[in-house]
């Protein structure tokens, strides 16, 4: 135990005296929170709409006014013909083009079926779907009002009003959604990269040899390498959370204790990974590559910005072994919804099993020799 204390003192001193490390410990959380949280958003502010009006009638003018009046569409261009309209999509100047044929007002008068044609830039499939559904609902409302104006009974044209409400995040602020996720990335990056690079550096510069010839036991060596980063990880988590609270004013609904407990369990799993990857690498460069490869997969699959339900079964099964996926879920539930221990007990239990498994495998794989 005494030996461990000495080793820990050595590690902390090394970290403190390395200006780069000391700075990174403070700078990484600040940078990540300030950069990632506001940037990562799928929120659609507006769609750039172009309208090619061949009809030039009061009806078409009214429809255009309604579209440009909605907060969602921004009228950016009025092309004169189809090829110009297409050109706007190719050059990216418009996201959507509405083409009103020259018989639109005749159609509205009842002579034919009034038609509208929409060209939609679908490179981003999600945006394309949503903007198309917004457009159709504006057109529907317009159509309904025209029909009612002509004296038809409202019951003839039934319409369903959808009133959405967003619980736990009433204004649907994406920062609420991203912050818990960014905190997971933060402690993953700190725990995995810093601890792993530290372990491998001793190997690379040969100082591990000096420790290997001392009577320090394997568990003491591992503990002395892992504990400092466990503490730093939790401190950085607190720092990140404070920034989120001060800068972005994100509420914290649940129990702080539960939140930190889950993150601590997660950190054990991450440090286990760091230890394991360090056995695979003999240089910091190699470690970085291996770690980056796996972390990238873990984070992308975790549901940080995509729904995990839409993933195929094999990908969902993969997430059984993905600690990031558990903490991503837990953090959002605890921070934003105020879920309690009973709500997350299953995820927390599985995460614990995973953490124990990861760290045990890593300790077994670690060899106290050059």
């Amino acid at each position, binding site marked *: 135990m005494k030996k461990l204390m000495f080793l820990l003192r050595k590690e902390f001193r090394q970290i403190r005296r390395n200006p780069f490390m000391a700075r990174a410990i403070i700078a990484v959380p600040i940078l990540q929170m300030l950069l990632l949280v506001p940037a990562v958003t799928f929120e659609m502010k507006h769609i750039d709409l172009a309208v090619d009006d061949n009809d030039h009638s009061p009806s078409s003018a009214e429809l255009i006014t309604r579209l440009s009046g909605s907060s969602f569409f921004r009228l950016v261009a009025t092309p004169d013909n189809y090829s110009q309209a297409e050109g706007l999509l190719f050059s990216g100047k418009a996201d959507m083009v509405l083409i009103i044929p020259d018989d639109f007002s005749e159609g509205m008068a009842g002579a034919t079926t009034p038609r509208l044609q929409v060209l939609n830039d679908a490179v981003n499939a999600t945006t394309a779907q949503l903007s198309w559904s917004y457009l159709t609902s504006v057109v529907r409302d317009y159509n309904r009002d025209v029909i009612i104006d002509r004296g038809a009974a409202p019951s003839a044209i039934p319409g369903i009003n959808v*009133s959405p409400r967003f619980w736990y995040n009433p204004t649907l602020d994406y920062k609420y959604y991203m912050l818990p996720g960014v905190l997971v990335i933060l402690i993953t990056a700190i725990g995995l990269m810093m601890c792993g690079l530290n372990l491998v550096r001793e190997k690379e510069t040969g100082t591990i040899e000096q420790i290997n010839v001392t009577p320090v036991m394997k568990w003491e060596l591992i503990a002395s390498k892992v504990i400092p980063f466990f503490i730093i990880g939790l401190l950085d988590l607190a720092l990140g959370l404070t920034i989120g609270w001060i800068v972005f004013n994100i509420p914290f609904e649940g129990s702080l204790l539960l939140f930190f407990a889950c993150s601590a369990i997660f950190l054990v799993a991450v440090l286990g990974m760091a230890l394991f990857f360090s056995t695979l690498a003999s240089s910091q460069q190699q470690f970085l590559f291996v770690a980056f490869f796996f972390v990238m997969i873990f984070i992308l699959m975790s549901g940080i910005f995509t729904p995990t339900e839409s993933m195929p079964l094999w990908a969902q099964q993969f997430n059984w072994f993905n600690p990031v996926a558990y903490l991503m879920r837990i953090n959002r539930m605890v921070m934003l919804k105020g879920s309690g221990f009973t709500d997350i007990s299953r995820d927390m239990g599985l995460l614990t099993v995973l953490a124990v498994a990861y760290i045990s495998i890593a300790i077994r794989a670690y060899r106290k020799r050059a």
Partner: protein
Amino acid sequence: MKRLMAFIRKEFLHIFRDYRTLIILFGIPAAQILIFGYAVRTDLTNAGIAVLDNAHDEITAELITKLDASEFFDVKYHLDSYNEIDPAFKKGTIKAAIVFPGDFGARLTREGSAAVSIIADGSEANNANLIVGYTTAILNDYSAGLTKQVTSSVPVINAEVRMFFNPNLKSHFMFVPGIITLILILTSALMTSVTIVREKEFGSMEILLVSPLRPWQIIIGKVAPYFFLSLVDVIVILLMAWLVFGLPVQGSVALLIAECMLYILLGLSIGILVSTSANKMENAIFISFIALMLPTLLLSGFIFPIENMPKVYDYVSWFLPPRWFVEIIRSIMIKGTGFVFIWKETMILVIMTLFFMIMSARRFKIRLEEGEK
């Protein structure tokens, strides 16, 4: 020239003899293509929802069946009271609850308008947005069907949409250009900066400097393998995109490759510049990650559209190469446009490349002089 060739060969051997480097060079692109192609989707399917049907009439029953039958939703619970919604959200089993008021069917048939409220779990903002969009579409579709039944004399607008560039609305159309950008930054900028700094840190740079090789030859020798491998990576990604998701290059492949070569050059010169300002590998890694990887992921419009971000990010992204490159790749690959549409972006990249080359050439000289002392 012969010396240079020998040196380049040595560098290649360095790379090929370390499987971990090869993981980065070929494992990452392959894994990303597979993840983005098969696993990660930005749309929502099978989202668990609950319904609270206070009306219990034929119309609500039909609507609930419709919602459940759609690929988007999976109706998990039929709730009896409003108070059951919160616990279900807290357990995380549902993403939204759809509440039909007691007089829903009656009002819809009698007055022609009825209200539904969707209570979505805002903690997952993106899903919440999609759920509202999907539900609205399903309900509108239903009420449009009713309109046709009751009215035949009044005009009903028939709007048709043509989804350009991506008719089947696949999300990987968005991702593949981003993956190319990310991989190229990784293989060109990150890898070169790290290998050069590694030689410095271990002092083997000294050995190279006292060798008969000229400084520029050392740089070329260090950089050439990564130029070549980056290019191989581009081809691998394009082939995978084509074979795995059937995403062909719509425009000219030659133009695409040429633009990629320009971007690789840009990445390499950034890598050299980073290596001149970092003495330790961890610093080089840190700089590369903060200054290269993060902006590539965030500010290129690869996953998150830039136009939705706070304005500041938009302005910052003007100074970042990935933003322009993603635009170029997307234009050529997906829209199939020619050089006329992207010459502006290309010019910006050319200027940036020249800038970084000059900067790194100047700074590298200083370093070498110091080393020779």
